[in-house]
């Protein structure tokens, strides 16, 4: 199993350009997440999905859109990139969010995409 994969690994954009980050998982997980990681800020949730065809906003959704057309894929789009979106982006997935009395299922992370917006 490949686990969680992310495409691309690196990207440099100019302000105003658009791009899509692709996340794929082969573990049949229901839940998928997009985070951004900035120095000193930890990981912040951008959007998440609790199943195919559903998406929801996280802590920092502005400037991003997402789609979950297939269970195994979760796409993150930047319509008009800004320098403030320079960051490392991580995708994660989990079997379900809530695992009853055992709390939440663990999240499996992809290797990350390092995005620079000039």
């Amino acid at each position, binding site marked *: 199993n490949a686990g969680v994969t992310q495409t691309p690994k690196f990207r440099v954009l100019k302000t105003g350009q658009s791009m899509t980050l692709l996340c794929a998982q082969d573990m049949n997980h229901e839940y998928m997440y997009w985070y951004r990681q900035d120095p*000193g*800020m*930890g*990981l*912040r949730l951008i959007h998440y999905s609790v199943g195919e065809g559903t998406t929801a906003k996280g802590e920092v959704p502005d400037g991003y859109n997402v789609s979950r057309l297939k269970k195994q894929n979760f796409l993150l789009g930047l319509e008009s990139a800004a320098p403030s979106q320079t960051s490392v982006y991580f995708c994660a997935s989990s079997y379900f969010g809530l695992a009853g009395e055992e709390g939440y299922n663990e*999240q*499996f992370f*992809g*290797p990350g995409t390092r995005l620079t917006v000039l």
Partner: protein
Amino acid sequence: GQQVMQIPQYQHVQEGEDFTTYCNSSTTLSNIQWYKQRPGGHPVFLIQLVKSGEVKKQKRLTFQFGEAKKNSSLHITATQTTDVGTYFCLYSGAGSYQLTFGKGTKLSVIP
């Protein structure tokens, strides 16, 4: 709103010394998970704590969840260079699905 502080932000230790990171909340937490991220890598799940007063051990790592479910700690005994990385807590408030990461504690181990 929920306030969770993860401290310290950085910790430099001599190899063989102990290390502890804390996540402290102003309100009751539903559960807490701990992750480790190696330099240049991605977060990897370590453990989850759900019950009040819970203590779990993984070799040299000891995880605790406070009696009031407002505090949690990760303690490493006799650190090794392989322990280098950033340790994050991931928490949710009681009655809330919203999961939030702490800002992390970056551990450096001096050989």
